[in-house]
């Protein structure tokens, strides 16, 4: 009887492990939590491996799944178009997807697997904290790293092999704060809230620097919360005592956080403006908060893809993404998508698969950006390593997500 129990337990464990690790191609499922290879066409062409990592499980998984799916879509599209030509030879891309978790140590482990086991020379990473870990492996081993994250610290001068494919918070913040000031000029007090993990600590200085660019704002400072927090009531009691109305700037990183925060703020009578420049999975977060709590919020990471200001290419991508995964597309998908095109452009510009040669060619490489026009890296911290692009600022009106206008770090047009 005991042996039978053990056998049944072993079978159940194996089944559960398979269920937790495998990614069957049903529309609602996330990518595999361990590794998935995007199929490449059967061809005599060479293969260029692209490491594709992000948090696929856990509290940061909405970022990771979005970004890695975007990268996989780009690999499919490039291969469908015949791949890339390097030094007269055709190459198809192969994405090697791996779960980096949402922490420094797990990010490092994921990069070690890609670099040492899979022999990948180009890595795309979604999320700041895990990228900090991945960078500890990619830099000393001369592997090109293109990441999506909010901190400038990762592209400091000593990280010569690292490029950023999304704006840091300075870009998003400048754009959104200028937008908010133009729309609500009477709102001049601002209080920031941010998560207390590796990502939050990395992006907070960038966030505060961006606020300082606007002397109109009276900066009331900031406070941290633990990722995964659900009950904000005690925190809100303290926050409201500071009378931050009418502006609260909220940075959230984890699933469920923004929705809970908005809902509880509303219950506690807060009626001021909320600016959210970084959250993913907004549609589901807004459902958690309810229409009353989200009315008038300013956000940018998930647009109404059928609304104004969205390009036809973005709209087409959104329809394709939603059809494939049955959830709304976020801009993290676009970031992952553009990252693969940036790598491909760098490789083509270098005419080589050598990561150092590609690094040197990257500043002059351009690609057809899904954000519109030619994508290229702009100068930041003394070298051309950061991509900037216009963003759509959205709000909620009568419970519906609508696009308000386009903003970019330095200018605003509506």
């Amino acid at each position, binding site marked *: 009887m005991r042996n039978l129990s053990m056998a049944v337990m072993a079978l159940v464990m194996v089944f559960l492990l398979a269920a937790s690790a495998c990614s069957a191609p049903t529309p609602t499922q996330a990518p595999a939590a361990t590794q998935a290879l995007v199929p490449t066409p059967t061809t005599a062409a060479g293969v260029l491996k692209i490491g594709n990592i992000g948090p696929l*499980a856990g509290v940061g998984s909405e970022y990771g*799944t979005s970004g890695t799916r975007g990268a996989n879509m780009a690999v499919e599209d490039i291969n469908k178009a015949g791949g890339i030509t390097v030094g007269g030879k055709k190459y198809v891309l192969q994405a090697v997807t791996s779960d980096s978790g949402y922490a420094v140590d797990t990010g490092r482990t994921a990069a070690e697997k890609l670099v040492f086991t899979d022999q990948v020379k180009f890595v795309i990473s979604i999320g700041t904290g895990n990228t900090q870990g991945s960078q500890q492996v990619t830099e000393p081993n001369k592997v090109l790293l293109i990441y999506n994250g909010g901190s400038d610290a990762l592209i400091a001068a000593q990280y010569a092999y690292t490029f950023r494919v999304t704006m840091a918070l300075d870009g998003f913040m400048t754009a959104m704060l200028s937008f908010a000031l133009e729309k609500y000029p009477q709102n001049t007090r601002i209080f920031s809230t941010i998560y207390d993990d590796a990502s939050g600590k990395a992006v907070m200085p960038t966030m505060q620097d961006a606020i300082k660019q606007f002397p109109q704002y009276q900066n009331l400072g900031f*406070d941290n*919360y633990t990722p995964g927090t*659900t*009950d904000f009531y*005690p925190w809100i*009691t303290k926050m409201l005592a500071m009378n931050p109305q009418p502006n609260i700037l909220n940075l959230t990183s984890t699933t*469920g956080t923004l929705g809970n925060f908005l809902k509880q703020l509303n219950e506690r009578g807060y009626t001021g403006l909320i600016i959210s420049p970084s959250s993913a999975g907004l549609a589901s977060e807004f459902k*958690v908060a309810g229409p009353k709590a989200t009315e008038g919020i300013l956000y940018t990471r998930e647009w109404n893809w059928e609304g104004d200001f969205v390009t036809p290419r973005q709209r087409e991508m959104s329809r394709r993404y939603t059809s494939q995964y049955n959830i709304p597309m976020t801009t993290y998908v676009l970031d992952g998508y553009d990252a693969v095109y940036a790598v491909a452009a760098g490789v083509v510009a270098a005419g080589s698969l050598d990561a150092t040669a590609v690094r040197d060619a990257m500043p002059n490489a351009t690609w057809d950006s899904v954000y519109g026009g030619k994508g290229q890296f702009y100068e930041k911290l003394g070298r051309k390593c950061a991509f900037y692009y216009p963003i759509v600022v959205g709000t909620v009106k009568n419970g519906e997500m609508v696009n308000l206008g386009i903003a970019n770090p330095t200018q605003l047009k509506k």
Partner: protein
Amino acid sequence: MTFTMFAQSAIDGLTTGMVYVVVALGLTLVFGVMDIVNFAHGEMFMLGAIVLWFLSVSLGINYIVALLMSAIAIAILGVLIERLFYRPFRGRLLDSFIVALALVTIIPNTVSNIAGPFAKAIPSPLPGTLQVQGVTLSLERMAVVMASIVLVAALFAFIQWHKAGKAMRAVAQDPDAAALQGISIDRTSSVCMALGCGLAAAAAGLIAPLFSATPWMGGEVIMKSFIIIIIGGLGSVPGAVLGGILLGYLEAFGTLFVSLPIVTLFGFVLIIVVLLARPKGLLGRA
């Protein structure tokens, strides 16, 4: 600190504390009776919320009915888990501990793959707030406090007067002596696991409309639950009540003075202080 802030924090502490209590009860029950550190308790809580979401949102079943169905389903799952995963390792604390850790890894990832990683909203059955002298009273939070009190009272009554509850107490005190008196350890373990997991699911069902349901919500819950039951005394139901309310108030008032991540540490500091003074916890058995 103004009177309004003090009063609001007092209310916040009570509601947060009672939420903690109802979650920690099942954990301390399982430990007290079965001598198992059920790290997967948080995942039972999460499953309770996800099942409730599926029943009430996806299938449109009435909230109360869905809550009951969810609690029963998770109680049955708890029995299966006890039978398949814990019973083979009974009396081997380390082995059962490793099995629990495996479940903690497997269950949320399975749920994420099936239901998606995003937050799932469960509409509140009792929306709205009352303002009293500048203090906000959330109706659904008040309802959770009431329901928690009822659950705690029902559990006390069950353990005190029901035959199965008495058997659980006997097994908790001395399994060998209980077995000699004709009490089935296997059956009592199953009842205990069903009760513990059902309580976790009921707690999740009460709390999920306040917040949301995500595959990762078990992590925070299990951490808080352990703080509570260690403070109150491992295996002590009254200790879990005391520990939960203490932690709720500590967080509510602590947040007024320091940031949330530091308040999170307060719980661990409290553990150190309590264990130094009373190594078995505040109401733990000697």
